[in-house]
C-alpha cells in the first residue's frame, strides 16, 4: 500500500518533469548537437582521411555522455530550488505527502528525465553509427546501464547540494564535481596500490567522493572491449544504489524541518 502510494507520487512528478523538459526543448538542442558531432567527425573521410571509426565513435558517445551529464545536473539542480523560488512548492506540500516523498518524487523525476534523454541521444548516435557502418558492440547495453546508475548518483548528489545551496550554486558545484570526478577515481587507483591500515581507512572515505567516472564505460565501448564481468556490474549497482540513497537521506535530513 505504502509502496503503491510512493509509486503514484513518483509517477506524478516524473510525468510533470518529462513534460517540462520536453517543452523547454533542451533535449532537442542536445540531439541536434550530438548528430552534428558524429557527422562532423565522419566528414573527415570526405577529405581522404581513413581509419576514423574510433574517432567517430568516441565523438558520438563522449558527446552523448557529456550532454546528458550537463542536462542531468541542470534538471536535478532545479527540482527543489525552482519550486521554492517560484513558490509552486506550497500547493505541492499542501497535499498529504511527506517531505521524504516529495524528495523521492523529485529524485525520480530528475533520474527518469536524465535516463530518457540519455537513451534517446544514445539511440540516435547508435543509429547514425550503424548507418555509417560503425556499429557498437554488446557492451553498449552495459554502457547504458552503468550510466543509469551514474545518473542515480548524480541526481541524489545534486539534489542534496540544492538543499544547501541555491539552484545556480548547486548547478555550478554539481557540474564541477561531476565533470571533474575523474580526479577522485584516480585516487581509487592510488589506494589500490597501498596496503594495511592506509587501505582500510581510505577505501570508505573514497566511496563518499564523487565517483561519477566509475559509471562511465565510454572508452570501453569506443575501443570495443568485451562486456564487463557481471560481478563487477553487480558491485557497481550496489554501490550506485547505496550512495544515491545516502545522498537522498542527507537531503532529507536538511529538508525535513526546513521552512519553505
Amino acid at each position, binding site marked *: 500500500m505504502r509502496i503503491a502510494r510512493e509509486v*503514484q507520487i513518483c509517477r506524478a512528478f516524473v510525468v510533470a518533469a518529462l513534460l517540462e523538459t520536453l517543452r*523547454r526543448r533542451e533535449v532537442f538542442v542536445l540531439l541536434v548537437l550530438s548528430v552534428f558531432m558524429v557527422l562532423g567527425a565522419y566528414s573527415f573521410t570526405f577529405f581522404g582521411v581513413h581509419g576514423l571509426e574510433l574517432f567517430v565513435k568516441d565523438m558520438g558517445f563522449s558527446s552523448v555522455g557529456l550532454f546528458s551529464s550537463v542536462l542531468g545536473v541542470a534538471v536535478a539542480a532545479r527540482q527543489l530550488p525552482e519550486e521554492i523560488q517560484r513558490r509552486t*512548492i506550497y500547493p505541492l506540500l*499542501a*497535499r498529504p505527502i511527506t517531505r521524504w516523498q516529495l524528495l523521492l518524487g523529485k529524485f525520480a523525476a530528475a533520474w527518469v528525465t536524465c535516463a530518457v534523454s540519455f537513451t534517446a541521444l544514445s539511440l540516435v548516435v547508435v543509429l547514425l553509427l550503424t548507418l555509417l557502418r560503425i556499429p557498437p558492440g554488446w557492451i553498449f547495453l552495459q554502457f547504458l546501464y552503468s550510466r543509469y546508475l551514474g545518473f542515480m548518483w548524480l541526481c541524489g548528489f545534486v539534489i542534496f547540494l540544492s538543499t544547501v545551496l541555491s539552484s545556480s550554486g548547486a548547478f555550478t558545484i554539481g557540474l564541477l564535481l561531476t565533470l571533474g570526478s575523474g580526479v577522485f577515481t584516480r585516487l581509487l587507483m592510488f589506494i589500490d596500490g597501498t596496503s594495511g591500515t592506509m587501505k582500510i581507512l581510505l577505501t570508505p572515505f573514497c566511496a563518499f567522493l564523487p565517483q561519477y567516472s566509475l559509471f562511465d564505460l565510454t572508452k570501453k565501448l569506443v575501443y570495443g572491449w568485451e562486456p564487463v564481468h557481471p560481478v563487477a556490474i553487480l558491485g557497481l549497482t550496489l554501490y550506485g544504489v547505496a550512495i544515491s540513497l545516502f545522498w537522498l537521506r542527507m537531503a532529507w535530513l536538511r529538508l525535513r524541518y526546513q521552512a519553505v
Partner: protein
Amino acid sequence: MIDAITVDNLVVAYPRPGKPPLRAVDGLSFRVAPGEIVGFLGINGAGKTSTIKSLMGFQPATSGTAILFNKPVQEATSRGNVGFLPETALYSPFLTPHETLWLHGELHGMERSAIRERIQDLLRLVGLSEKAHVQNRTLSKGMLQRVGIAQALLARPRLLVMDEVSSGLDPLGRRDLRNLLKEQRDDGVTIFFSSHQLGEAELICDRILVIHQGRLIAERTIEELRRRVTSLEDFFVTLVESGRDPLLDTREALEALR
C-alpha cells in the same frame, strides 16, 4: 464535534543574526468549528501568512500546537481533508491547467478515473475549459488564480485554507470567488482565509479573528459587529491602533487580561 482547526499557544519565531528572534506569531490560540467561514484579518506583517504556513506544515512552529481535524500538522495525513490556495497562485509554467490538476490529484492519492472526472467539472466551474490545454505561462494572473481555486477544490476538501486570495482577482473574479465560497459553505466546507480587505470579510464571513504583532486581539462574529459597530473599517483601525478590542466590556476586558 471535532474542530476543523485548533491552534494552541502557537509561536513562530524567525532567527535574526545578532538580534533576538522575531516572533511573527506570538502565543496565538483559536479554534475554527466545522462549517464556519472565518476571516483571519490583520495589517501587512501582522503574522497571518506565518500562521497559515505553520498550519499547512510549511513552517515548523517554534512552540505550541496546530491541529487540523484532530491530527497535528506535522503529520502529512492532517492535510488529507484540506484544500490550500496560496496568495499568488503560481504553477509550473510549462504545464497546462489540466496537467497541473492531474499532478495534484495524483499527489493527493486520488483514483485516476476520479481525477479525470473532477478535472472536467472543476475547469468548467472556474471557466477554464477552453484553456485546459494551454501552458500556464500564457495565462493571466486572474486565470492562474482560477487554476489555483480548481486545485484547492480538487479533492473535495472539508477545509479550505486561503491566503489573501482575492488580491489577484478583478471585481468579477472576486464576485465569482465569493459565490463559490458560499456554495462550498452550503456543502459543509469550513473556510479559513486571511485577508486585509475588510469588505471582503464582511460579505462572506461568519466570524473574524484579528491578529496584530503576532497576537490575537479580537474575535467577533459578523452578526455582532453589524449590531454594535457602524463601520467595520473604523472598528479595525481603532483595534489595530490601540491594540485592544473596543467592544470589550469591563468584565470581558478583565477576563482577557486574566
